[in-house]
């Protein structure tokens, strides 16, 4: 376990909202929060985003951490801001969570400082993941189990792991929080459900936060498919596989796999068209090169669908995209994600952070 001192980012400067009287707060409170977070009700997913660049993430993040992050399929949740979470207290949290799991599991009272719990939780900071200045460092949680009969030098088995992250989180939202809150809105877990719910309830009771399931909707899946396809020249995506659920009786699932080179060619066509159009409107958009627009994504998907229609006379628009996968990763609408290549991890997590922030109740 790596424990080191990390400064929790202080997002207080912009957020020092004045302490006006309570009655006023409650009367104009929501309005002021609405003002700060640019009209909560109107929040939508970004309509354009930067194309994923091959991040030299291996330089910044330790290989052990990366190995944990890219190996597994994660079940995603959103988390409301954590109250008084300190990156400096991870050792204590490890102890408390271990005791909590033991207490929940065995239904007995447990001393927190007892060194030998049957489950050993460990918290660690994943350095180098945070992108923006406001992002809090990613936290990795692992639970190892220890068998009573195992020998001392037996390696402990990791039975559960999870992480909390905020990659390129909306700075306005983060700044609008009082300073004793840490925003780590994206939670991924992998392991048995009982342990997941134990960890969640420990977080709920310790940092007064709430966990809700985060599904990856149709639009986000389309985004992921396009973003991954965009990486084809640098790193072979091997295939672009999409699963569509068509609402007929009995329910029909269509798996649609596209050759990587074909997908890339279609994508470049769509990109070119869009770029030409853009240039027609505005001449000097040099740095816009790496920006992908939602219209390009829609067009790409539309072309894929019409290609399918030409062959099978079946309009996929009637269905829903439920899964997208390439060699870089896979994502399911149920909120399960697997990132297979760490080089493009950041852009995926950025999109997912955005989805999680959209779910914030306040």
């Amino acid at each position, binding site marked *: 376990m790596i424990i080191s001192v990390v400064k929790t980012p202080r997002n207080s400067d912009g957020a020092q909202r004045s302490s006006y009287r309570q009655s006023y707060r409650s009367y104009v409170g929501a*309005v002021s929060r609405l003002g700060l977070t640019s009209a909560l009700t109107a929040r939508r997913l970004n309509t354009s985003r930067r194309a994923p660049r091959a991040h030299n993430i291996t330089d910044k993040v330790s290989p052990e951490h990366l190995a944990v992050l890219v190996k597994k399929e994660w079940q995603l949740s959103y988390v409301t801001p954590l109250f008084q979470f300190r990156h400096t207290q991870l050792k204590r949290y490890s102890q408390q969570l271990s005791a909590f799991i033991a207490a929940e599991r065995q239904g007995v009272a447990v001393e*927190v400082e007892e060194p030998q719990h049957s489950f050993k939780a460990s918290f660690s900071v994943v350095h180098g993941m945070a992108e923006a200045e406001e992002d809090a460092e990613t936290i990795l949680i692992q639970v190892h189990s220890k068998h009573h009969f195992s020998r001392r030098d037996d390696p402990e088995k990791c039975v559960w792991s999870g992480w909390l992250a905020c990659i390129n989180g909306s700075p306005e939202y983060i700044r609008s929080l009082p300073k004793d809150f840490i925003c780590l809105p994206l939670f991924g877990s992998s392991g048995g459900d009982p342990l997941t719910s134990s960890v969640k309830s420990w977080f709920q009771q310790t940092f007064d936060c709430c966990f*809700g399931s985060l599904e990856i909707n149709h639009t986000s899946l389309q985004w992921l498919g396009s973003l991954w396809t965009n990486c084809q020249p640098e790193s072979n995506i091997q295939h672009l596989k999409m699963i569509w659920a068509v609402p007929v009786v009995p329910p029909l699932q269509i798996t649609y796999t596209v050759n990587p080179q074909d997908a890339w060619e279609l994508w470049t066509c769509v990109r070119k068209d869009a770029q030409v159009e853009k240039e027609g409107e505005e001449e000097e958009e040099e740095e816009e090169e790496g920006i992908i627009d939602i219209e390009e994504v829609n067009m790409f998907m539309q072309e894929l669908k019409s290609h399918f229609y030409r062959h099978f006379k079946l309009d996929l628009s009637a269905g829903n995209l439920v899964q997208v996968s390439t060699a870089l990763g896979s994502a399911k609408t149920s909120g399960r994600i697997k990132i297979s290549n760490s080089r493009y991890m950041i852009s995926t997590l950025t999109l997912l952070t955005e989805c999680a922030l959209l779910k914030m109740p306040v």
Partner: protein
Amino acid sequence: MAAKLSLSGPSDSDTSSPSDQSVSGRSVNRSLRIAEKERRKNEAEDPFVLALKYFSDVEPGTPVNGNDQLERNLVCVEKVAYSKGLHPEAISIMLEFAMSLRMGSSPCVRVLKCLIPSSVVPQEAVVRAVVWLGIGKIPISTQVLFIKWVLTVFDMIDAKDQLRAIYGFIFSFVTEENLCPFICHLLYLLTRKESVRVFRVRKLLELQSKVGRQPFLMHLLSLYKVFCPELVTLSIPSPMKNAFRNHNSPWKSALLAVQKRNGSQVSSSSLSLTAKDKTNSRKRKHCHLEVPALNSAVNKQAQTDSCSSRKVVPLVQIHSFAQLLENMHRIELPAQMGSLLGSSLTLQFLDCVQDESALLRLNSWLGYALHEEFLFCNDAGSFQNSEEALQFLEKLLSTLHFRQEGFSSIEVFLYKFLNAWDGSLLRPQILGLMSNIPVVTSSQIGQFLFEPLMQLFFTSSLFFKCGLMECLNNMLLKWLTWHSVYALEDDLDISLNSHTSINITLSGFKDSVMELVHFVGRLATVGLQLEGCHSLLLSFILDFYETVCDMFLKYGLPLVVMPPPGVFYPALFAADPVSVDRLAYIMYRYKVNLTSAKRQEKLKEQAFHISRQTFHEFNHYVVVMVNCLWNSKMFHQGMGVQLGEEVLLKSNVPQYSNSFDLIHHPAFLSYAVDFHQKCWPGRKDMDLNSIKHSKPWRWYLEYLFTQGYDGLKQFVQSNISWQPIAGDGGSDDLATQQR
């Protein structure tokens, strides 16, 4: 000693000898002393006093068998105990006698069983007895009996400080297997934060590993967790009531009987102590609607180390309002702020929470629960299971009602939810929440509220329309009440001090109110058309305008907004007299408000200005009403309703200009007929126009007024110079001082 004496009460004739000395020491004059002597003489012969003397003086080792004296005295004590209860001194003596085993263990149980206190139990006696527990060779069953007795009379022990001082000594008995459950209960009652220590936690955990998770251990440990969550953790399964099973104690009924006889009410709450009963043990499907349990915060260490000298009280430990008041300044916020919504006591506390972070935590949880239940509902069947949702919203509504304040998360939720709502799911509750929405700035109100509401309004049933009208009326009332409170406080300067980021100025507030009133005007106009001027809807609309017309005088808001013609005319021509009467009342209140506003405007230079347009509208409406109801000039030039002469002739209505005066108005026709019959009982042919003559007209009006049409009365009296005595009926003088 003196304190104890007064507790035992002067009326108590059995005051025993040791305490007499202090009493005599206080006596000041001779006569008192004589009385004292007399009393002592009486006491000396009292068998009870003698019995006590026997028990306090009896030599150790006195044989029990065949000891008639012992038997006699014991019976005497028992008799007093079961009838009146034992006074503190007697308790001390008897307890000391029993626990010291001066005559062996056989009378011990009998004595313990009759230890029924009449008022209080002296702490010293209990402490001494506990000490004997450690020294003497008391049989284990008797030890259990003693601890049970302590638990029963716990609330009657006059002080607990010394008992707490020997907490460690009492704790040492937990290892005694048979005593353990009762010792745990006693410790539970005595535990303070400072008594929770690592080694005690370890001892209890060690015990747990031996005897398993016994309820009494778990409960003591859970209390330890309340005080020191950083030391111990456990999860208590919810159906764990009756942690301490001591309810069938042998003294309970006798104690109750004695207390009843003495008329004193010392409730023994320690006995009825059970685990906080979680009413819903059944598995909840939607756990997000469950208010979190009240727990003390684990994570405080980090930031409160510096001020740990200040003693804080976990909110879990607060059980009554009195305790709340006493500890208000040092109550520690719970681990999960959402838990404050769990009980009315914690709600009281919530009212005092000023901490912005704490409120944000609460709002996060509340918003999360609402979003998950009503917006994100992942499982399709969640709306079917709306019983819990209903209860949750009801609880929320009563909380809002109690607090008289909203939560920003509810507001944010509603703005989103209104776009997805079908207008029928949990309608009363959602409308109830909506009426609590605080002032919305006029720039946002349209997008957030009006657009979704308009769609819902035009596509929903009559009942939804009525409900929405009521809701908007309540919302306006709340805004106005808020304004009137803070306008008074701030001397009409609503603009907050300069340090606020968002402030709402008086003019901003006026804009919002105006937007709302205009919005309701639009809804009402179209709604009445859609529903064929339904009188139920009209009634809710008139409710709203009853609020609007009095905004200046009742709530001090310098704003007068007239109803649109789409509301005014349907009310004026309504077929039911109540609507017409209410319209008349509303117009009367408008007049009073406008007159008073005008007066103020003249008085103060900087006073607000009410636009000429408003006066114009008002005057126009008044002229229409008077012409229509009074002057029978329904379709004259300049009236709101104009029809061509030929159209009116074509209608074949005779005397069409009369058709909406107070006699022929469809709402009042039945009254006119009734009046006609009463006035001229003999007449065969009915000529309603004959009421128009000055005298009958006057009578007719008075007749209408006696039917309870006060609005009409006030309207007529304030707008028409009408002298009932002069009999100059049909006067058409309009009061037109407003212009």
